[in-house]
């Protein structure tokens, strides 16, 4: 299994990766991107099984990345990991095709619960 972590913060990409390991996904291959635009390129090249994506990023934000992917017919499993978890954003995420929205700060248990349907 391969997971793409999209976040403009290097420390957050590191924390997300660490939390994935702590949640029990120690053998998952991780690839990274710094924003939505780079995420599009990495998805095309690496074909991840799951995208864990921040919402608020420069260049291209997370919701625009998801909308672009779905407009292209790309149905990769997609979840948000973001500091903002308002009802409005959760509705937008779900309507755009996201499987979940994990709010920061998160725990390994929250990761496990959200990712289990996708990664097993």
């Amino acid at each position: 299994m391969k997971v793409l972590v999209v976040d403009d913060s290097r420390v957050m990409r590191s924390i997300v990766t660490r939390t994935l390991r702590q949640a029990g996904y120690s053998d998952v291959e991780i690839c990274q991107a710094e924003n939505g635009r780079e995420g599009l390129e990495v998805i095309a090249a690496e074909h991840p099984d799951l995208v864990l994506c921040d919402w608020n990023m420069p260049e291209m934000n997370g919701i625009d990345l998801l909308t672009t992917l779905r407009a292209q017919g790309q149905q990769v499993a997609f979840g948000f990991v973001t500091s903002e978890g308002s009802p409005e954003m959760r509705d937008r995420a779900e309507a755009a095709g996201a499987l979940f929205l994990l709010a920061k700060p998160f725990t390994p248990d929250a990761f496990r619960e959200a990712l289990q349907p996708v990664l097993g």
Partner: protein
Amino acid sequence: MTIKHEQIIEIAESVWSSFLGLSLHEVDVSTSTGPDSGHDASATVHISGSWNGSVILSCSAAFARRCAVTMFQIVDEDLDDAEVADAFGELVNMIGGNLKGLLPEPSQLSLPTVTQGGSHVVTIPGARLLDQVELECDGDRLHIAVWLRA
């Protein structure tokens, strides 16, 4: 709808506990160096829309560095200023994002801005200080200010 003092503290405690494994506790804000005095590190996010204001996180350079070391899980010698800025910016992003969730929608959260060095003061022209908290962490101090733009 507004932000309650206790909510600022709860969010900060949750962030520090979850991502740094550190406990914060509130101290008397009158003992703070306060928003009018200089800090060595500050990080700011702005919220704009149905509610307009800013959240500013301030502390010593040493505490910002300590937080970054813990978040990156690397030794201090391997940490550069860009990494401190990245980590400190992410901390204010989480606090601002969680506070935004308590406020009327719709609104937008800006990307964080981080300033380091020089005992600086951050001001938000045209805004007033809505609330501030002073937190202590093993001898280090953290100041959080919430500004409301008219």
